[in-house]
């Protein structure tokens, strides 16, 4: 089920946990605010030089987890280790960790230079050393000519870069970023995403990013931790999260997915057959699944993993094909999204690439179509 490894193991230390020591260790951390359980028994290992994204909706506990790493909140129980040292009781001003705030939190009464120098001054560095470091950081974020400005004289994108420079000034071992791109408009956000990754790779600092934007997480992250209701729902590389979700929540939260309920009719080591009345056909899955005959489970498939056709295609095993009527078509330029109503009333969303320009023969409204997929396209979900 795992895809082949294209990269050497040492660039992906999480794949070889026996030989790599995690850099950040979150062990059984729980945080309660009064009676409200914000973070529930989270354990997470993050490795050096990772760009780890905590992804979740509002109230999923991702920001609370980040604030506990920064030291602004104390875990109710559990421990946090950074670089082998227990940080649970260490106050924020003594941690080798810096944070970039969602609101940027630039000091309004200080110039850009003073903002960046603030942390260095707290370390009692020499004047010359501080000004060298500030100049270095200003050129890193391409704001050489803005050092004397006040934050209110900068645009949103420039402020974001000042905040990043200030957070990097002390060469933290670990940088925490709270919705780093949330306040930028779409175009600027896309440009900044790549810049952020470039900076992270060139400095080798470990980044932990909190975001609610899955596209952002997919672009930035080496690994993503999906959070739901204070718990980690799944941890994995972006492709794992998208292609091999471990639960209905993850499948539904990331991207869009068609999900149907079914009952196992054949359970062999090499394949599984699932009967779904919703789908009106059998699902033949070409690999073994940890399940039992007669078990009720769910099957999820992404819209782009299915094919539409007017004629009934030939499929092996008498499965993996169903039919319906096209109800809606959303033309998005590169792809078209079809909503097809099956006989059971279930609606499937299928996307097709518009590879022919202005195709006059394209499938249109109210047509009867067949939908088919390969035996490895869907994910079988038991929870």
């Amino acid at each position: 089920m795992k895809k082949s490894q294209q990269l050497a193991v040492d660039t992906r230390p999480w794949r070889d946990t026996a030989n790599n020591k995690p850099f950040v260790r979150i062990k059984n951390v729980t945080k309660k605010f009064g009676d409200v359980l914000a973070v529930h028994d989270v354990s997470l290992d993050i490795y050096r030089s990772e760009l780890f994204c905590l992804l979740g909706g509002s109230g999923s506990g991702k920001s609370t987890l980040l604030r506990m790493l920064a030291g602004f909140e104390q875990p109710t129980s559990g421990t946090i280790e950074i670089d082998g040292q227990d940080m649970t009781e260490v106050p924020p001003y003594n941690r080798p960790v810096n944070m970039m705030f969602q609101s940027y939190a630039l000091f309004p009464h200080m110039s850009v230079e003073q903002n960046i120098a603030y942390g260095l001054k707290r370390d009692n560095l020499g004047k010359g050393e501080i000004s060298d470091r500030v100049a270095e950081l200003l050129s890193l974020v391409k704001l050489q000519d803005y050092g004397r400005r006040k934050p209110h004289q900068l645009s949103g994108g420039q402020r974001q870069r000042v905040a990043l420079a200030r957070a990097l000034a002390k060469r933290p071992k670990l940088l925490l970023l709270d919705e780093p791109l949330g306040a930028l408009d779409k175009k600027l956000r896309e440009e900044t995403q790549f810049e952020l990754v470039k900076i992270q790779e060139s400095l080798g600092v470990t980044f932990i990013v909190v975001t609610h934007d899955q596209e952002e997480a997919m672009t930035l992250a080496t690994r993503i931790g999906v959070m739901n209701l204070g718990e980690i729902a799944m941890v994995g590389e972006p492709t794992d999260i998208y292609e091999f979700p471990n639960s209905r929540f993850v499948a539904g939260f990331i991207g869009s997915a068609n999900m149907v309920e079914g009952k196992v009719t054949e359970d062999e080591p090499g394949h599984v057959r699932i009967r779904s009345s919703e789908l009106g056909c059998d699902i033949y899955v070409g690999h073994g699944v940890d399940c039992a005959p007669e078990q009720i489970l769910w099957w999820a498939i992404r819209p782009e993993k299915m094919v539409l056709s007017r004629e009934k295609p030939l499929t092996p095993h008498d499965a993996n094909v169903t039919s319906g009527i096209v109800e809606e078509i959303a033309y998005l330029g590169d792809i078209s999204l079809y909503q097809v109503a099956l006989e059971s009333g279930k609606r499937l969303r299928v996307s097709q690439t518009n590879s022919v320009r202005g195709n006059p023969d394209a499938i249109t409204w109210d047509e009867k179509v067949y939908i088919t997929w390969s035996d490895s396209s869907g994910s079988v979900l038991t929870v």
Partner: protein
Amino acid sequence: MRRGWFLPIAAALGFSFLYAPIVSLVIFSFNESRLVTVWSGFSTKWYGELFRDPQMLNAAWLSLQIGAVSATIALVLGTLAAVALVRFRRFRGRTLFSGMVSAPLVMPDVITGLSLLLLFVAMEGFLGWPQGRGMLTIILAHSTFCTAYVCVVVQSRLGDFDRSLEEAAMDLGASPLRTFFDITLPIIAPALVSGWLLGFTLSLDDLVIASFVSGPGSSTLPMVIFSKVRLGVSPDVNALATIIIGLVATGVLIATIIQLRSKPKKAKV
């Protein structure tokens, strides 16, 4: 649309209602005549007269001292109260505390004055302090009600203060105390300045409370003026009033400018 005549006239009437008495007072302070209501020519002799009157000068000096000291005490106490109210959202007796802090704002001066007088007398009986009544008791009394005003002003400023600024400073290695002096204080400074000026002005202005808690030989400026006026208005009081108006207006103006200049930055950042 044609500009109506109604609005300018209404504005003129409103302003004259508010400021005509003050303007006439200022004009008559430059009157030559001994009679307050009869104009007989321009002169600054009453200003000269004023500065030769030791009673008046002593009272003015006392009032300035009291104003400065009580405004400073009120600034410290009021700021602490505001921090407690804004930063600690929930603690035992919060409602009571916030009510008590702002009570002097709505309490009639007579009651505040009387209750403080009773308190001071009782304290002298039990503790032997403060001995008698005079400058000290006036300062204590003024600090009490000025604290309420400072608290309100600072509270509103702290209310829209972005907490993450302080967190950012701590994250960069500043201890909580350092953070307070580097970040919190500079940002709420405008509110502190205007709070102090407000307290100073109110203390300078107070007659009723001071009358209750003052003792022999410690008459504040308003008390002296009031007792003089009761024996008939003399033109040097006009001169004095003009000076006070000038001082107060300058103070209020400075406070307003400081508040306004700090606003646009905050709105953007």
